[in-house]
């Protein structure tokens, strides 16, 4: 980049969030640069998922702001945030269990093409050959093409994750939020997912990724923020984080105590 300071896609500033007496996030600041993979790591209960939930409008921050591409997200509905270009993979896969894989992937494509609501009752799904081809390509990418007519509910947990990833990818979001995309996957599948995410990386999609698996984090991330007890305790390039004593303490403290 020619600019010293590249574009900030997601800007979280001064966000606080409490649940009753429990402070889940305390004054969290996070700047995600365009086209980068930004990993958020931290021990269990550090507030990582809460932070993502604030970003997609599932939770409202008590104070502070979340700004995406210059727009404040605080008062937006989840579907509006998605229409702005934010997609998310959940920690427990959220898919359409009663529909087949092809339909699962086509539905987000409809949202991308037709917007939040279109009364499209005169066309037939089978005549949507373009969207179908797009969906089949995505299913190839995530390695589920052969099973495209299976019901999504019949997939294993790891496969459901990949399906959900495909459902997000077909929308070509500006920002993709991934909540532990490889949890519950076998090593082989994890590596496949890393390869897949690397390939999308080259397409210039910005990603925020929460991950426990350090192998995944260090193979993908351009930048890492470490969250512990609701605050960002360290931020920097992967090499910097690897040697940071506070990070070691946060993790080792958890492991030993």
């Amino acid at each position, binding site marked *: 980049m020619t600019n010293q300071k590249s574009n900030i896609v997601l800007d979280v500033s001064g966000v606080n969030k409490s649940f009753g007496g429990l402070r889940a996030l305390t004054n969290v600041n996070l700047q995600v640069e365009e086209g980068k993979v930004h990993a958020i790591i931290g021990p269990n209960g550090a507030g990582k998922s809460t932070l993502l939930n604030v970003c*997609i409008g*599932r939770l409202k921050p008590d104070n502070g702001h979340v700004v995406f591409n210059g727009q404040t997200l605080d008062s937006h*509905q*989840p*579907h509006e945030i*998605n*229409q702005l270009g934010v*997609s*998310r993979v*959940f920690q427990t896969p*959220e*898919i*359409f*269990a*009663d*529909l*087949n894989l092809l*339909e699962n992937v*086509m*539905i*987000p494509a*409809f*949202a*991308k093409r*037709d*917007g*939040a*609501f*279109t*009364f*499209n*009752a*005169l*066309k*037939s*799904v*089978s*005549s*949507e050959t373009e969207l179908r081809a797009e969906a089949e390509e995505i299913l190839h990418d995530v390695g589920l093409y052969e*099973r495209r*007519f*299976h019901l999504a509910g019949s997939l294993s947990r790891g496969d459901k994750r990949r399906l959900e990833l495909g*459902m997000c990818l077909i*929308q070509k979001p500006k920002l993709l939020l991934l909540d532990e995309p490889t949890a519950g996957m076998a090593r082989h599948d994890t590596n496949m997912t890393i390869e897949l995410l690397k390939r999308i990386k080259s397409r210039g999609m910005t990603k925020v990724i929460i991950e426990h698996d350090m192998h995944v984090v260090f193979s993908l991330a351009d930048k890492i923020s470490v969250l512990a007890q609701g605050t960002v305790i360290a931020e920097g390039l992967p090499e910097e984080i690897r040697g940071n004593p506070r990070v070691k303490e946060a993790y080792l403290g958890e492991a030993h105590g």
Partner: protein
Amino acid sequence: MLGNLSKNDWILVIGFSAVVLLAPILFQPIGAAYPAILEKFCIFGLFAIGFNILFGLTGYLSFGHAAFLGVGSYAAVWSFKLLSMNVLPAIVLSMVFAGVFALVIGFVSLRRSGIYFSILTLAFAQMSYNMAYSVLTPLTNGETGLQLSLKDPRVIDSLFVTAGDGLPRTSLFGVGISGGGLPGFYFTAVVLIIGFYVALRIFRSPFGLMLKAIKSNQNRMRYTGFNTRPYLMAAFVISGVYAGLAGSLMAAVDPLAGPDRMQWTASGEVVLMTILGGVGTLVGPVIGAAVIKYFENIFSAFNENALANIFSFLPQGLRDGVVKISSLFVGEGWSLTLGLVFMAIVIFLPGGIMEGIRLIVSRFKKRGNGNKSAVNGQAQPAE
């Protein structure tokens, strides 16, 4: 527009139409070939098809659909009284009124989901029912029900023909619809077939797919960028319009409307029809409606004398006992039988009659194929 259905869907439409149109011949052996009962099959079939667009596709269980049926009936009778005995204006008017009514009720009820949605719709329907009895009497003629009278203006008809002596019949450009003739049945049959075709198009459309997705995971739909409320609203109004249409057909074949058409038992009946036939299937609700109306007809006709005749081969003492017990299940007690059958279906065959048919067909296919294993992944979900 016609080229959008797959070959299998066309076979389904043509097969369905054939069965419906040939019903006066096909249903001869089971004694249900006379117009009055066939009209009932068609009208309640249509009601159930519309109900299934809401319940089958989105999973939102309305317990107040009879309200739309009632509104449709009243609107149709008013059209017969004020405008014309022609059934077409009556049908259009009923659909419009039921649609507007559904818009209002849906606007409030769809703020909640699950059991709260069901309760809200039930409350609205009971409210309409009670209002039809009380404050709305000028519109509904209260308990007596809304009927035709010789003093009705019928402004359109009076331009063309002078009124005869008796009460006129409803008609379609001169062909009599009310009064239990075959034209009446064929009229309802054609409306049913059109209603079936429209439902099929909705099932196969992107709109229908979105409704199914809402049923499957509404949360995912929201985070996928869909505003689910207008989708639900559209489904609710469409199914309300279907109910209004069914109500207007009731008035067309028998031009009167009473408040009991709006009672919760009528709302419950369409739920039973849909579940009995198969929720979310295309043909199921029609089959469910026909089965319930057929057996209602048969069972309600039985009385103790008829039962005594049937069991006359038994010795006196035993016969009295058997007649006493079985008489609980017929006549007025028919709903007891229906309740038991319904429980059995929900417990043993949750997919309804359609699931039963599918199970039988797949068993036959397996036998036919020998050990050639079916590639179940390739099978498109039926209906």
